[in-house]
């Protein structure tokens, strides 16, 4: 538990950071900071407001800087950049280049061919590098470099610059967020976390690093004790910080604990009723929970707040999708994407809608855009795999399933998909390996059931592959295993098929009694199977009677 003094110190730091950030027009980061300040316990406990510090260069550029700032505020980015040409202070250079990038971004979105605009980024890189190598480096410029390298998908360099920025100024949440975006692999994430933790850098025992750790692990769908502990610790310092509650919500959502997640979000909505951020994720969950009325209420509610927010559009799209109106849903997703082309889930969800409409090519296109924006989204990778599977391009789908599995190796669905794929392209060994993996994951995820429960579908799959490669012994083992699941899972298609197979096998081995026992009350599957079962039963009985 933190002492009051340390909280006061934290408050002062955050206040100062907030002023710095809003001075330089990093609006999202400053919003985050202000929310954090208000999320602290007894938030009104402010004794003194810190002021900005200026170095001589800042003072020299000050008049032009405020001019540029006001241009920035009215969104005249090019004019802002131009009014700062020749300024020497780091902040002025940052604002100049930042507004340049914003204007480039805008133009690229408007003109749809950013080919020659793109080359301007490298000039910005050079300017930053020469500035940071000459005089005292500016942490905002490192942050900017990180953004650019992320755009160019040069993640290594991006991380290096972002970390450099954070060491100088840890309170820039946008910078942390950018760092999270630059990490696309779970191994990489762990490596980074361990490196920072073991190093003696200023970042290690800091509140901001804790925030980072929680969000990073949350985005990789982790639900470990550590994450929860860190989160609780943060919540004790920031009891009213909705950002943290959202993280908690997301963790619950990822661990499929929908009811808890729902209650957390309801609480957030009560605290801050006009908050639209992350509302779309909430609607996704309601969709999965099939809470139709709540979802339609949410759609109405959010469109009353602001119709033209990408989140609102996603919610409405979810609503239409739930009603089976896939075209309308797609229209709304498209609208969300016009409003924000980097809308994370919209591309993936639109892909799902196209799959519903059996338009595989459009689905592939959407999923592809989704993984372009967020390579951590395993659902999109999985979707790509499925779409290619429909098109009978198994090599492609194998690759995409592999990507998905890399992100989500403890999800048996991934391994099943990979196993199927390997089977289709005739790689039975690999296929067996994948299915076994799926089985072992499935098993370890439910330790409480002591005797071990196996998904009969997977068992049947394994058995049938062993049958294909004529390994009767193994085949028998898995058929048996599959059949045994009838106790836990009830009678399913697979167990019945296994039962039939076992009966046939017993017949071959002349174990007529066993065959008869197995087939006598099989009446689950299709007519053909039932017919066969009856035939086997009849034959077995005949032989027994002989």
């Amino acid at each position, binding site marked *: 538990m933190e002492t009051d003094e340390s909280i006061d110190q934290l408050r002062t730091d955050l206040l100062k950071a907030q002023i710095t950030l809003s001075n330089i027009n990093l609006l999202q980061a400053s919003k985050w900071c202000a929310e954090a300040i208000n999320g602290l316990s007894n938030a009104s406990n402010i004794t003194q407001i810190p002021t900005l510090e200026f170095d001589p260069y800042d003072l020299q550029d000050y008049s032009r800087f405020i001019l540029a700032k006001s241009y920035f505020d009215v969104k005249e980015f090019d004019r802002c950049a131009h009014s700062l040409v020749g300024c020497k202070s780091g902040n002025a250079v940052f604002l100049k280049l930042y507004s340049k990038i914003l204007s480039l971004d805008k133009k690229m979105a408007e003109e749809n061919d950013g080919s020659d605009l793109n080359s301007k980024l490298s000039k910005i890189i050079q300017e930053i590098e020469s500035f940071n190598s000459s005089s005292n480096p500016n942490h905002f410029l490192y942050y900017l470099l990180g953004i650019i390298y992320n755009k160019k998908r040069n993640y290594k360099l991006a991380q290096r610059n972002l970390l450099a920025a954070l060491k100088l100024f840890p309170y820039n949440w946008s910078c942390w967020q950018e760092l999270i975006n630059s990490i696309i692999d779970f191994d990489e994430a762990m490596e980074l976390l361990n490196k920072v933790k073991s190093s003696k850098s200023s970042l290690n025992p800091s509140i901001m690093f804790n925030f980072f750790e929680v969000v990073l692990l949350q985005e990789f769908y982790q639900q470990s*004790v550590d994450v929860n502990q860190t989160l609780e610790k943060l919540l004790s310092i920031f009891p009213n910080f909705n950002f943290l509650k959202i993280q908690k919500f997301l963790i619950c959502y990822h661990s499929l604990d929908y009811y808890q997640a729902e209650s957390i979000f309801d609480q957030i909505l009560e605290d801050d009723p006009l908050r639209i951020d992350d509302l779309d994720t909430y609607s996704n969950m309601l969709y999965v929970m099939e809470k139709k009325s709540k979802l339609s209420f949410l759609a109405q509610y959010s469109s009353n707040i602001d119709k033209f927010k990408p989140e609102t559009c996603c919610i409405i799209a979810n609503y239409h999708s739930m009603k089976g109106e896939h075209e309308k849903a797609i229209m709304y997703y498209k609208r969300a994407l016009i409003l924000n082309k980097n809308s994370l889930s919209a591309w993936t969800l639109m892909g799902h809608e196209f799959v519903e409409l059996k338009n595989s090519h459009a689905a592939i296109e959407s999923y592809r855009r989704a993984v372009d924006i967020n390579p951590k989204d395993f659902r999109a990778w999985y979707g790509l795999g499925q779409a290619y599977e429909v098109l009978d391009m198994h090599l492609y789908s194998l690759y995409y399933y592999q990507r998905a*599995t890399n992100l989500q190796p403890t999800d048996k669905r991934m391994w099943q998909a990979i196993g199927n794929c390997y089977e289709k392209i005739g790689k039975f060994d690999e296929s067996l390996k994948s299915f*076994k993996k799926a089985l*072992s994951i499935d098993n*370890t995820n439910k330790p409480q059931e002591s005797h071990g429960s196996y998904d009969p579908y997977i068992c049947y799959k394994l058995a049938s592959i062993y049958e294909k490669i004529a390994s009767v012994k193994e085949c028998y083992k898995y058929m048996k295993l599959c059949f045994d699941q009838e106790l836990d899972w009830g009678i399913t298609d697979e167990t019945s098929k296994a039962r039939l197979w076992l009966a046939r096998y017993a017949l071959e081995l002349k174990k007529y009694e066993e065959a008869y026992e197995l087939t006598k009350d099989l009446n689950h599957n299709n007519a053909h199977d039932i017919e066969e079962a009856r035939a086997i039963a009849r034959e077995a009985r005949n032989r027994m009677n002989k």
Partner: protein
Amino acid sequence: MPQPQKTPSQHNSTLYISPLVNNRQNEVFVTPPNPAAKIFGSPGSENTTSFFNVDRNVTNNGNQSKDSQPLSQAEKLRLWRHDALMQHQYKTAEFIGDKVLALTSDPNDAFWLAQVYFSSGNYLRAKSLLMSKPEFEKSVSCRYLAAFCLIKLELWDDALDLIGESNPFRRDEQYQIRNSDGGIKLESSMCYLRGLIFANQNNFDKAKEAYKEAVFVDVKCFEAFNELITNNLMTPSEEWEFITQLNYSDADNNDELVKLLYSSRLSKYFNVHKFDEAETILKQDYDLGDNTDILLARADYLYVQCNFDECLSVCERVLSKDQYNFSILPNYLSCLHELGGKNKLFLKAHQLAESHPTDAMTWLAIGVYYLSINKIIEARRFFSKATLLNPNFGQAWIGFAHTFAAEGEHEQAISAYAFAARLFPGTHLPNLFLGMQHLLMDNLNLAEEYLSTSYQICNTDPLLLNELGVIHFHKNDLVRAEAFFKEALTASKNLNSDSQTWICLHANLGHVYRKANELHRALECYNQVLRISDKNDTNLLASIGLVYLKLGNHLKSISFLHDALAISPSDPVATDLLKRALSSNQHYSKPFFDSASNKIRTMRANSISTTSPSMEPQKNDDLEDVGDIARSLKMGEVSSDEDEEVMDIESD
């Protein structure tokens, strides 16, 4: 004494017979007429009506000093004639000059009368006057002007007959007479005329020699120097050698200045530090930092370094001082073309078309504009118009050739480049372009021949070294290719590192390493490129994909190939590679399973729900993995045998 004007010798200039100078007092004659501080003001800048400000001195001195002779009648008429000429009142000058000549029948008066005709554009009349009497023909100045008239009339052979094929006054090297009057020696000017004639007869070797002689005889003959430099008659190393051999003492106490000014004009591929030195001295000691010619030299330098942004800003500075400065325009136009400044090109072309409709530069500008907006056919039409207006206009010829190259019409491009190569023997560019065209047509031997010719002219241009590397790459001589690329990289040390050339060099070096199977070094090079360049080079991404494929990292390989195909979806090389990567991905499942097992282990390690039993199935896996290794060893590398040629040619 009523001295008749002496006929000048070849060591004099026409100043000697100028009526003003002729009457100058001795002290005026010795010291420069202007105060030392104002040596850079043009003569007569303080005097609006007359040619040299000396003439005020003359009248003053004439009135004040008692021992000066009173002017004769003829001399007064001469002054009248001269002032009329200077005020461009040709009728007066003609009228009076004719009378003076009639009075004196002095060859010098004939010269001045002819000068009047010449100035009013009446070359034929000037020529016939100058050749009307044998004594006129004997005068060096008259002969010079007569030859010039013939040149203006484009009667090249006659002009050459008149002044002779070689310099009749040539002596041994040591013997140098300083001319006393500070003007340009007529001997030198005659050499210059000879150069002009040879150049127009397409005899560039002789022209070069004549121009060089002109500058040797009198370093002040800038006309000849300018012809040498702007037409690139000498190779860069020749230029630097030439400039050290000149005799600057002719320029008197301006020798240092002239030397610096001349060196700032030379090729920027060579001796960069000397250029920098000259520039700084000119800026600091002579305060010429804002002078157009110094800025022009700066712009040339920046252009060669591919620093187009800076170059453009220098050009704009020059144009804001002097918007009709034509010598900066080629640089300005190329910069705008490189940087995609279509709108400014449009404006400039229109301005030029309004102000100078008959100048070749105008049509060059229009051609460049059309080239920028990718209208090749129109661009070609305007380039060819520019070459019609000025057949020796190299930039226009090269632009003309580029239009063919852009449309892939190699044969025609080659013939146009070849013409440019003939016009500019001292620059390596046309030969370089020729080599590139042959390379595109897969004529490796011819291409190498041209490129090595080009290499002999200039061996420090990174672009050229790059092409040589490409040739050796295609010939599978990887060692030499690598050597050339590395040489190019050292040559491009001070090149702007985001320029296309720099990027292309790194990419090509990467290709060499890739082919030589030094995969990690190849990746290093490619990463350099990725860091700087924009992300839309299919070729590069496909190559990276290939390298990863060879390294056995299929997932990465596939993802790079996908990126490549996202840029150009129908790229055959990338498609083919992707197919191979995907199909070999199915064989190499081991790394995938391994990394997945590792991941599961780490995730388990910090997850709540599970404890140790998860290790059990792992053991099983490991056993199978051994089998995998054995199998993959048996299969060997599938993909590395026949890799596609993914080498890109950078044409500039």
